[in-house]
């Protein structure tokens, strides 16, 4: 398996990355979404701009009431981060179930979000956490609410030439959160990934990966739960994915089961 030929450029800073990407090409972070598709020749960028070793993208800090995760932080780094464990433990726990240890050592949160695989784990977590995705391009930096970020199957609100620089996650002081995943047995991607974030006042946010063409906030379920009612069917009104591991009917059933399990975990 070998990719098409391409030119490799290494960016030393976000500014350099943005400048290089303005000339065309695709950003390469950990490469664990991109390189496999390039090897299968499903993807053929003529230039790769390596943003995987930009120090400013790798930091994890707390700024005020926000946990700020650099887009280049690896899943493994987030899973092991004491800062994350303290301020948004669901992110650490959820990260520890992405891929496998070697994949977690390379794959990055920014790369995963930009790729926007509907079955990836991060989208449900950032959606439920009401996170903000910070992107930067030639016209500067802008913040996109997670709820506005995912626009469809493998598509996001990012513009050409932009890269993700940060994921800003509100610190949920006094609250609880849980990410529950029913994994596809071969790929271990989510058939259903359900993230529930419960704030200190008891209100919950619910988001799903794997269930529909794009990850989504299950606002119908949220309304029911937050008004004290029981959710009989999760992902109500959504179009549901179907494949040989989970039909539409079964996936919807699983979504309901996993919502129940996630709610139990934050009870």
């Amino acid at each position, binding site marked *: 398996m070998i990719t098409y030929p391409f030119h490799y450029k290494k960016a030393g800073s976000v500014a350099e990355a943005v400048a290089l990407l303005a000339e065309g090409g695709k950003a390469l972070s950990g490469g664990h979404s991109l390189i*496999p598709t390039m090897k*299968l020749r499903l993807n053929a960028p003529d230039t790769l701009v390596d943003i995987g070793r930009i120090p400013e993208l790798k930091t994890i800090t707390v700024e005020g009431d926000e946990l700020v995760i650099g887009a280049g932080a690896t899943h493994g780094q987030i899973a092991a981060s004491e800062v994350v464990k303290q301020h948004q433990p669901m992110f650490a726990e959820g990260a520890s179930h992405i891929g496998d240890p070697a*994949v977690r050592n390379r794959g990055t949160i920014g790369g995963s979000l930009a790729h926007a695989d509907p079955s990836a784990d991060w989208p449900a977590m950032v959606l439920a956490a009401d996170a903000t995705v910070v992107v930067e391009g030639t016209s500067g930096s802008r913040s996109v609410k997670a709820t506005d970020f995912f626009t469809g199957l493998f598509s996001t609100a990012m513009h050409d030439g932009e890269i993700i620089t940060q994921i800003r996650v509100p610190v949920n002081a006094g609250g609880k959160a849980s990410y529950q995943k029913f994994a596809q047995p071969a790929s271990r991607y989510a058939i259903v990934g359900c993230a529930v974030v419960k704030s200190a006042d008891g209100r919950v946010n619910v988001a799903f990966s794997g269930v529909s063409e794009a990850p989504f906030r299950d606002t119908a379920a949220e309304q029911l739960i937050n008004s004290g009612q029981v959710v009989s069917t999760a992902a109500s009104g959504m179009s549901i994915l179907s494949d040989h591991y989970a039909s539409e009917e079964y996936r919807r059933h699983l979504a309901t089961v996993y919502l129940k399990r996630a709610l139990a975990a934050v009870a």
Partner: protein
Amino acid sequence: MKTQITVNGKPRAADLEDRTLLVDYLRDSLHLTGTHVGCDTSSCGACTVHLDGVAVKACTILAVQADGCQVTTIEGLAKGDGMHPLQDGFKECHGLQCGFCTPGMIMAAADLLTRNPHPTEAEIRTALEGNICRCTGYHNIVKSIQWAAEQASAPLLADSHLWTNDTVTREIVETA
């Protein structure tokens, strides 16, 4: 592109086509054929090596991405002429049959024992999620890793002589 990668402690200079995968560089240019390719989808782990001290899949990394980094392969795991405890463990507990997945298994296990010197059976099984073996049913691989963990009086630092990064927080830092 010109690269300088330290492989098993030796600086290696190369001028590679940009699309060269790390695994192909190791196998084809350096003839370090202990690192294997078993799939196309980053799934099987036969190509697992350590990059700056942590396990990675060399089939999913461009060689140019490793420029300036330290790579350890199965050939460089043991210090000196001896065996790494995991190598002994795999032999002692019959943790291999055809041997094809074995280098990757050992490199993945070394990464685990670095983070978690005394893992439970369940932790070992979870840590091998990205490494496929078709021969052993994993039973003896689990025992091999347990054996190695028991042998080590101090935490097993797989290749500490090469490490430059913080193995606890997994912060990746540029290596000089």
